[in-house]
């Protein structure tokens, strides 16, 4: 089938009333949680994962994807209007966006953010449509050795590009790998690391870990540092940007989109990294860097385009190689797995309607988001006045039902509470739990492929350096490790993330 035929197939799938409905629902939910501080997309998707089990595969995935990119739109709204970034990825938007609002240009800041995001979403969706089939042909050449090297590279690169100390991130990945090994060993049938508990013979469910680490521990942490009641809103003025705003915004949108699309592809990359990088790049390229932070249009346009582009392009490695690049994509992977679909090159040929339906729904979703966000902005802003005290019981209930409904077992609920406590400890230890999920999802894949490789070669590990693709990945891994030891690189990396901590 030609490219056009496949796109038409995708749109016909995405336009069915049911899929369209779930796309809208995802976009609405994404905007909602993007607006509400204290609830991130990771926690929301963790909560909704069990529900997708009751939906057809494509509808569920369309909804989850909508939440992820919808949150990028919603997060910018609060960043601009109340200087309260709803999401980590809109922290930098608040710098100039809130200043614009203070200067009475809230409307044009919001419009620039939404239109820039829409443009970026369109480009990134197109990139996904073009890169998908190309990359998957390439991926079909991968043997187990290549997959092992790719996963090692992906896991390591993810720790370096993510914020926070590298060693801690590596440790978190290792804990994730270890947790992934609990249960019956697939090759030999032996029970591993189960404490003899029958409930653990099937392994720990991804949802239990995700809801525990992100849902429950986030509630506890938010309650500990409560005080998000009552916010002061900037006054909303005319919505349409001036011609001057457009002229200043469009090059920044272009640059942000390009950078975001590329950064979304990288392991560990994603919306947050993209928006920070785009902002600092814009500042560096500007002729008046000193004006940044006082309400510059480019300071809103670039990061907002970048985070949306990255949110969508990070689907590329997952859908073409079957390798999730960040914790959000790890969630998506498990959403596919719930329905027995393993994302990767074969899905494109065996179930093209899944891939193309998702691609088409992303574009439709972006269009819906512009409508949801611009004319309806007043409604979302009202939601900000809802205190957390009324929100968290609802989140708590959804989390609990979600965990329980998987197997109807008390055990899962208690285990999730345990992971909630563990997540709380991680927060106190200043460890970011994202890499753990990545390790947990990739662990079984890594082990199975490593075993397969060494079984084929009779225990000879030299295959990893003899196969060119595998060798390239390993060399890249070694270079990354080498860079981490170099003091000058470490310094630049720390500087790059300093703004994020502020």
């Amino acid at each position, binding site marked *: 089938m030609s490219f056009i035929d496949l796109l038409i197939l995708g749109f016909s799938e995405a336009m069915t009333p049911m899929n369209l409905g779930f796309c809208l629902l995802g976009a609405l939910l994404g905007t909602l949680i993007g607006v509400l501080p204290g609830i991130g997309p990771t926690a929301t998707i963790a909560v909704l994962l069990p529900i997708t089990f009751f939906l057809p595969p494509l509808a569920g995935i369309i909804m989850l994807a909508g939440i992820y990119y919808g949150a990028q739109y919603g997060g910018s709204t609060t960043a601009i209007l109340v200087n309260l970034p709803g999401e980590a990825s809109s922290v930098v938007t608040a710098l100039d966006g809130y200043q614009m609002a203070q200067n009475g240009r809230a409307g044009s800041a919001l419009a620039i953010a939404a239109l820039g995001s829409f443009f970026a979403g369109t480009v990134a969706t197109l990139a996904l449509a073009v890169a998908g089939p190309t990359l998957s042909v390439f991926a079909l050449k991968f043997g187990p050795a290549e997959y092992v090297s790719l996963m090692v590279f992906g896991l390591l690169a993810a720790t370096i590009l993510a914020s926070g100390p590298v060693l801690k991130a590596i440790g978190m990945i290792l804990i994730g790998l270890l947790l992934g090994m609990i249960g019956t060993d697939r090759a030999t049938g032996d029970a591993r690391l189960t404490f003899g508990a029958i409930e653990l013979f099937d392994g720990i469910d991804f949802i239990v870990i995700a809801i525990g680490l992100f849902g429950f521990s986030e509630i506890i942490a938010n309650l500990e540092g409560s005080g998000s009641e009552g916010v002061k809103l900037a006054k909303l003025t005319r919505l349409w940007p001036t011609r001057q705003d457009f002229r200043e915004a469009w090059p920044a949108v272009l640059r942000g989109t390009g950078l975001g699309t590329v950064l979304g592809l990288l392991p560990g990359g994603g919306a947050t990294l993209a928006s920070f990088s785009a902002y600092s790049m814009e500042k560096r390229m500007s002729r008046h860097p000193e004006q940044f932070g006082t309400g510059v249009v480019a300071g809103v346009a670039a990061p907002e385009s970048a985070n949306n582009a990255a949110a969508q392009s990070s689907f590329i490695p997952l859908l073409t190689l079957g390798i999730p690049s960040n914790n959000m994509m790890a969630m998506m992977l498990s959403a596919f797995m719930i329905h027995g679909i393993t994302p990767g090159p074969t899905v494109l040929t065996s179930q093209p309607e899944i891939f193309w339906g998702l691609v088409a729904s992303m574009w439709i979703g972006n269009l819906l988001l512009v409508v949801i966000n611009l004319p309806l902005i007043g409604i979302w802003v009202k939601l900000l006045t809802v205190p957390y005290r009324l929100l968290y019981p609802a989140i708590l209930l959804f989390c609990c039902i979600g965990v329980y409904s998987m197997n*109807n077992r008390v055990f899962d609920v208690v285990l999730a509470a345990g992971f909630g406590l563990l997540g709380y400890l991680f927060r106190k*230890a*200043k460890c970011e739990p994202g890499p753990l999920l990545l390790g947990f999802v990739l662990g079984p894949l890594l082990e199975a492929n490593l075993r397969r490789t060494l079984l084929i070669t009779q225990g000879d590990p030299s295959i990893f350096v003899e196969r060119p693709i595998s060798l390239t990945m390993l060399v890249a891994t070694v270079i990354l490790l080498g860079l981490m030891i170099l003091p000058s690189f470490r310094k630049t990396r720390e500087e790059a993330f300093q703004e994020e901590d502020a």
Partner: protein
Amino acid sequence: MRGPSAAQRGDRPDLLTALIFVGFGALGLFLARPLDGGTLAQMGPGFMPRVICGLLILVGLAVGLPALRRPLVRIEPVKIRPVVVILLSIVGFGLAVTYLGFVLASLWLILAGAMADPGGKMRQTLLLAAGLTAFGALIFVYGLGVQVPLWPF
């Protein structure tokens, strides 16, 4: 010259990290004892767990040892109330939903969970509990068909 005394040293969050990492590694090694390691060509179930746990302990030490000599950084203060209240209400929900049905479990979860935030008003919390329980029953039990009894009888 008076150096900082021993009590003023140690990056506590990093030391906690090291404790977690080494603890997980040691626990994993302990549990993996009966598992067969196998050979490279024919890996047994114990091979990867041992490798991972070994690495985990190494990383834990690499985080922890330098942290001992760094100046004191305290762990953010722990508020015990939300931790205990939230965790207990979750566990209570799990038990109640099995033996007492969804309605009572949900009411328990929200009423007990609301104790985590001392600022709540009684009337508001009761209304919230009733509303969320009805909503949850409609969406999850009727709408999505989650297999759980509504009432204890």
